[in-house]
């Protein structure tokens, strides 16, 4: 990895971005029509994310975090500006981006392994191979033994593990996580936080994670993007230079956590 080259601008072509920049959000705005009136949800957001970087987005509820993530996922389109992933403009969803929603969104009529295997259908992988890959990823997220369980038979934490396995199954360059642990109890969340760190160390990816848990942000992030609401924009980007693996009780961690928290309290005046 060479940071120098990474930052060099290759071409001024709008379709080609900087080498090493995995995700580029370029002057993006998004408004929704609410009863005939436009509601500006994101206003002129620009953000470059380096390949392999772990970026955490925090901000008050309703400030447009999910909307931003959906724009990167290609599930929604901006009204102005553009998003680039791996150098090409996002025009729709793609298997280069795995996504985990806040609700696990497992299909209830499929078993855990079938749910994970579903991620490989669009690539035309034969069924037996799909299930093989699915079982590997279930093992990776710690769900060995639950391959043929239906979602209704899994706990919330297990279901979210399976959802993470599904997002990883295509080995995407980019992983997008929208409050993936938000619905879990504190203990399960702690466990899965460690698990996500383990997974991202084992198989580095560019990760964008949305959360409103400040400690989680400091635990994961290379950079924390703090967003403002109405309209949603980036208020501040906080680099996190703490060594990994991170110790939640280290003075550096505690200090940074309260610094980010202050940033939040400021926001609400």
């Amino acid at each position, binding site marked *: 990895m060479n940071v120098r080259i990474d930052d060099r601008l290759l071409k001024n072509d709008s379709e080609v971005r900087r080498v090493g920049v995995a995700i580029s959000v370029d002057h993006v705005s998004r408004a929704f029509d609410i009863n005939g009136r436009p509601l500006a949800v994101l206003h002129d957001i620009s953000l470059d994310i380096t390949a392999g970087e772990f970026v955490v987005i925090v901000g008050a509820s309703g400030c447009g975090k999910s909307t931003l993530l959906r724009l990167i996922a290609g599930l929604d389109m901006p009204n102005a500006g553009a998003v680039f992933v791996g150098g090409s403009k996002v025009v729709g969803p793609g298997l280069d981006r795995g996504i985990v929603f806040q609700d696990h*969104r497992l*299909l209830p009529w499929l078993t855990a392994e079938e749910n994970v295997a579903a991620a490989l259908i669009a690539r035309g992988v034969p069924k037996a191979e799909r299930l093989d890959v699915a079982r590997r990823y279930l093992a990776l997220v710690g769900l060995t033994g639950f391959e043929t369980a239906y979602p209704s038979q899994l706990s919330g934490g297990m279901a979210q593990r399976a959802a993470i396995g599904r997002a990883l199954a295509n080995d995407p360059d980019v992983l997008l996580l929208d409050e993936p642990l938000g619905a879990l109890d504190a203990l399960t969340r702690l466990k899965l936080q460690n698990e996500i760190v383990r997974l991202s160390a084992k198989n580095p990816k560019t990760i964008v994670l949305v959360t409103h848990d400040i400690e989680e942000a400091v635990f994961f992030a290379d950079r924390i993007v703090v967003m403002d609401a109405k309209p949603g924009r980036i208020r501040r980007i906080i680099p996190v230079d703490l060594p990994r693996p991170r110790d939640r009780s280290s003075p550096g961690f505690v200090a940074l956590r309260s610094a980010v928290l202050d940033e939040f309290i400021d926001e609400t005046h």
Partner: protein
Amino acid sequence: MQSKGIYLPRGLLLPVAILLAWEVAAHAGRSGGVLIAPLEQIASTAFTLAAGGTMAVDVAATIARVMSGFVLGAVAGLLFGSVIGTSRAADWLASPTFNAVRQVPLTGWIPVAALLFGIGEGAKLSLIALAAFCPVALNTAEGLAGVSQSYRELGRSLNFSGVTSWWRILLPAATPQIFTGLKHGIAFAWIAAIAAELLLTSGPGLGSMIEGGTALFRLDIVMVGVCLIGAFGYAMAVAMERVEARFLRWRN
């Protein structure tokens, strides 16, 4: 602790009470001149009809009619409901007509069917098929249209094509409601078959059996018919629920 008395399943309590009341009324009515056939007479008539082979012919005729009419109507309902529930344009075009058609009670269609097809098999089948068609089409359409946005979005995020999305997400998500439609469909088909047989009397069938009993003032024959209708209607509902349970195993 439960006392060791006569054990009676809860579901049988009411029927037994009704039968007892019937029997008492039948014997009391005999002196009062009311024509209530006592249970033993109904039973012996049932036995005679069964032994003579006419009961089997009637039952088989009705069941065959219901089955073929139901399959016709349900398949058409699945197809029609799929189109309406998937395509907004088709919904816009065809739903008002469909909703108007399904407001007409079945008995309203009987004269229409008689005029179009006569009183033979064609009229009966088309009535049964129509009865099954409406609930199946309605529930299929509603089930498909009502699939949550989050599942559709998941399909998009997995790069599913329209066809894959329909087959892997929309259809399975709509299956519980489609089965609701199929269960109503088989029940309505059964009702339609009896109504059609009663009003378009031709050939064997449970409706014709009842009609014949009425003409002879034989309440015992009528009651045998009614019991058979109830029993086989119930059996069909149970069979459909078995099929549903197989398809929807994932629900628990």
